[in-house]
């Protein structure tokens, strides 16, 4: 909760004001009843109609003031609460986007997203719905108790006889209902997960005749949820009528002793009557506070999980005094890189240097370190030993963003954001004009893809690019890289997964993209690799062969074996071709 305090910065005055307003609101509620007492004793019982009229008028003014104060309180608390929530959400998101890829590969996406959404929502709900209840009742409860004591301290003390059982009951309710609600949420989450999984995988459920099994699993979960929901209802059905019962009991006690005191002439009838109603103002906050207790608990638990992300240190960050990188010529130097994800190094001293505008290809089986090299070049990780230098400058010595903006990446499974095709191309250069976007699209053949779709470049891409083929998505991501106009390019398996006719289009797009830039190509297809000035064969985290295609094919070694499989050709098919 201390973390939340920092978002109050600049709103402390408003928060203090809201506490005052809450106090005013509580005073209006309890004060109203004290006025009623005055009206009974000095108006009705005394037979003074004028006094009665005056007090009733004051009472109405007080009620109107309470009305206004409560309205201010609701708005004010919501404003403060949302300021905290938005601050928290933004900080969390900003922090998260600065964390390294290692964090994202270790934590499940669903887990991270839940922190940003359901956990922040839990805090938000508490602040927007729970807060007004909490603030007004926390103030109202002692105010009502005080008013009861002011009305008559003896009566007040006596009526508090029922407070201990009421407090014990509330405590019980808070404890039990909180645990029960958590279990209820778990069970409904299990039901939801079951339905979601069945619906998403219905093709397989039906194809493998799994309907009955899934129905049985569902019935079990649905039933468990129903049982828990019933249990929760029993707790609620017990608590609220109990408090109601205690309220009547307290009233009976007040009537009994009040009648005595009244008979002895030490208590006015007005006080006796008003005490009955003031008692309700004591019991009502007790119920409402019990109700928000669970919410507070959940918000606390959510905050703990949120904090676990905020406490995560970004692995790759700018050194103090890091300078922005000037526009690069494109000299890329990998110097004796050693890197391990865990204990076992995946790179054992890899070195090579690509001259400005040069194109190197990395080939080798998966899991031997090619993609790790790409990530070190992109500075998603820093090497354990050695250095990545661009134009002779260690990338750790410059501002990360200024470096990455001169870097282009095309991945095997290009990620498209929801939005239009144009906005996806513009992603890497948000200030690009429509003409520039169209030019980039035309240069790599995205214009032809877009022509088939409704809206052309303004066609809405659904999340993740569903509805477009892998090849089409790849073309868009190449246009994106082209528009960014990077000095250094990394293509990681950019042509896998694509049918041959589309691949031809992509190859052409790549030629366009690579021109005049330093590039590293990781590929399985010989046709993609062939354009490189030099081919490096990576095996077990080392470079085992390097040279041009002809040189390597002429050598006995790993490349020849790879070249065979690179094209996936059976010997007889090769002969046939």
């Amino acid at each position, binding site marked *: 909760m201390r973390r939340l305090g920092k978002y109050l910065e600049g709103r402390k005055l408003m928060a203090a004001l809201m506490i005052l307003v809450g106090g005013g609101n509580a005073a209006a509620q309890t004060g109203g009843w004290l006025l009623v007492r005055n009206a009974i004793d000095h108006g009705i019982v005394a037979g003074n109609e004028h006094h009665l009229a005056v007090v009733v008028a004051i009472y109405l003014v007080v009620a109107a003031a309470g009305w206004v104060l409560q309205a201010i309180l609701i708005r004010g608390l919501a404003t403060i609460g949302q300021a905290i929530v*938005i601050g928290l959400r933004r900080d969390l998101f900003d922090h998260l*986007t600065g964390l390294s890829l290692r964090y994202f590969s270790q934590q499940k996406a669903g887990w991270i997203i839940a922190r940003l959404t359901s956990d922040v929502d839990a805090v938000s709900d508490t602040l927007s719905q729970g807060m007004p209840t909490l603030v007004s009742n926390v103030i109202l409860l002692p105010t009502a108790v005080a008013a009861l004591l002011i009305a008559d301290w003896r009566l007040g003390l006596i009526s508090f006889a029922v407070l201990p059982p009421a407090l014990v009951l509330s405590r019980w309710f808070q404890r039990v209902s909180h645990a029960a609600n958590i279990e209820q949420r778990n069970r409904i989450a299990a*039901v939801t997960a079951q339905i979601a999984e069945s619906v998403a995988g219905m093709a397989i459920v039906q194809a493998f005749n799994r309907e009955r099994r899934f*129905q049985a699993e569902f019935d079990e979960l649905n039933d468990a949820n129903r049982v828990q929901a*019933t249990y929760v209802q029993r707790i609620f059905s017990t608590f609220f009528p109990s408090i109601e019962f205690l309220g009547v009991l307290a009233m009976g006690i007040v009537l009994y002793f009040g009648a005595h005191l009244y008979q002895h002439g030490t208590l006015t009838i007005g006080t006796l009557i008003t005490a009955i109603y003031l008692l309700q103002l004591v019991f009502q906050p007790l119920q409402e506070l019990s109700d928000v207790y669970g919410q507070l608990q959940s918000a606390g638990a959510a905050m703990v999980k949120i904090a676990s992300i905020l406490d995560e240190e970004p692995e790759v960050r700018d050194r103090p005094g890091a300078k922005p990188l000037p526009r690069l010529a494109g000299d890329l130097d990998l110097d004796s890189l050693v890197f391990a994800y865990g204990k076992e190094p995946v790179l054992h001293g890899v070195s090579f240097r690509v001259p400005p505008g040069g194109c190197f290809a990395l080939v080798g089986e998966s899991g031997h370190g090619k993609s790790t090299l790409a990530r070190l070049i992109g500075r998603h990780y820093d090497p354990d030993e050695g250095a990545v230098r661009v134009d002779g400058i260690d990338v750790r010595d410059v501002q990360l963003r200024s470096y990455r903006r001169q870097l282009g*990446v095309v991945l095997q499974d290009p990620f498209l954001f929801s939005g239009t095709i144009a906005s996806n191309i513009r992603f890497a250069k948000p200030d690009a004009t429509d003409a520039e976007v169209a030019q980039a699209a035309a240069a790599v053949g995205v214009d032809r893809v877009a022509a088939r779709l409704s809206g052309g470049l303004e066609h809405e891409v659904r999340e993740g690019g569903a509805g477009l083929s892998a090849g089409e998505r790849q073309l868009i991501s190449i246009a994106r890289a082209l528009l960014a106009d990077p000095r250094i390019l990394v293509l990681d398996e950019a042509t896998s997964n694509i049918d041959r006719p589309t691949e031809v289009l992509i190859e052409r797009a790549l030629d366009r993209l690579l021109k005049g830039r330093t590039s590293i190509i990781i590929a399985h297809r010989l046709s993609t690799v062939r354009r490189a000035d030099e081919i490096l064969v990576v095996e077990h985290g080392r470079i085992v062969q390097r040279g041009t295609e002809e040189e390597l094919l002429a050598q006995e070694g790993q490349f020849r074996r790879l070249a065979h499989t690179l094209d996936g050709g059976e010997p007889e098919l090769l002969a046939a071709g």
Partner: protein
Amino acid sequence: MPPYVNPVDPPDLGLLPTFVRLLRIWRTQWKMGVFGLSCSFGYTLISIAIPFLIQQAIDYSIDTTHHQHRKPLWPYLAAIAGLAALRFVINFNRRYATARIGVRIEARMRELLYQAYLGYPRAFFDRHATGQVLSRATNDLYPIRYFIGWGLVQGIQSVMMIVAATIVLVLVDARLALYTAVAMPPITVLALRFARRVSPISRQVQARKGDVTESADEAVVGIEMVQAFGREDDIRERFGEKAEGVRSTVLRQAGVEARHLPGLYYLPALSIAAVVFFGGRAVIGGQLTLGQFVLFETLLLQLVWPLEAIGWILDLAQRALASAGRSFAWLEGIEPLPEPERPRHLPEPPAPLGVRFERVAFAYGGEKDVLRDLDLVVEPGEIVAVCGPTGAGKTSLLNLLPRFYDPTEGRVLVGGVDTRDVPIAELRASVALVTQRPILFSVPLRENLTAGREDADWEEVLAACEAAGVDSFGANLPEGYDTLIGERGVNLSGGQRQRVALARALVTGARVVVLDDPLSAVDTFTERRLVARLRPALESRTVLVATQRLSTVEIADRAVVLEDGRIVESGSPSELLRAGGPFSTLFGDEVIAA
């Protein structure tokens, strides 16, 4: 046979038919319903009796200005305590009974919907997003639960309370009752108005929260892209906008609350003031006793909640009916895939089954034909690769075999029998499928593998794993084959998932195997190893495999090329490569390159 037509998006049911259906469901719980209503009646009587006893106590044993004889106080207090205890019991039972009805009906509706989902044709799932289908069986049910489990009985109880309290007040002093009821109509109106305004806004808040989720989801999944281009600032700005959207909607909601809630809270003060002023004058004038004054005050305060509740319940009823109308429309308007009227059976195993497509045309619900006049014969035990550019209709063709769809014209025969004449379960048990995007369930790997045949011999499963290349990673998972797969367990890579799906299909022992681009996410080296191992595992089965890769085509005896919904070429892969036709355009470069 006429093509099977089934509406998959029926219109929502109207208010009245929905209400009738809800009542019908409620009737299954009628005993508990009647019990709840009786409790409500008792609750109302006691809630009127207690203030009445207080009045008697004040008038006859506390303030004795109007009576010479003072009665003892304790009998009144004992009666009040007794009634309060009784009311506790009744109140508990009413709440618990009605809530249980709601919970049961919610569970029942969910069960009906889920059961229906399992039988719905694929066209239904094409038409409706997963989120929509999901929320119909979860969030959409809550208004129904609260309306049935609380609203109905609470509404009736509120009316009883209002009627009873009005009768008592009128009997005591009709004119005063009229004056003091001044705040009551505005309370009802305000409550109803509040309910009407706040529920659409709270739905908007949910929708805005959904936007935040989507934006967060995108950023987290696409983080590599974001960081690679150094675009953190843009994505933060985008996220900030969505977060701002939540904030402004929540603040609008707070605005609506600020305009209504304090009113509901302070409007009763008008009535209290009226009682104090007019009632007070009547007491001074001797027409009213102090006890009656208190009775008025108490009963009026007791009326506030039932009046507010009516406002809430009216709104709740509307939402419940709307959401139930949607659910009933699905339950009644969509039929599962029909079983044949006169079922015929497939030839007994182990005879291999041939597959034949006869003049097949197919279109997705009213759109233009994806397959046209297509003829294809796959001999028993033959492996046929279906090739063609993206969008040629490969997946549509394969989906006809397990009857995910029926052809719009022509027919599909398995083992010489029209698929529409075979009992669905029998057909699907004979056709094993590997979908383009592998679908695995969040259960241990072992259960995923045996999903198609639970009693499979473990040796056979391991053999299938070896053929499909699951053996290379399966045993190395944290808990081997017992490792839980999915979000809550281990996330497998795309290629690994495909291999598990492939092994699962092999385990079934089905005589027809349908593979839709089964190795697209497997790297080329692994693919080559798998193709060699798969061939013997598919021995004596009839196989249709759609693929984009020449290396996968090599598994087949014959390849056919699909273009614009027709088969344009057929023959052995090496023949086709030489022929220089569409097939060699698709794959030629891949070979010539070497």
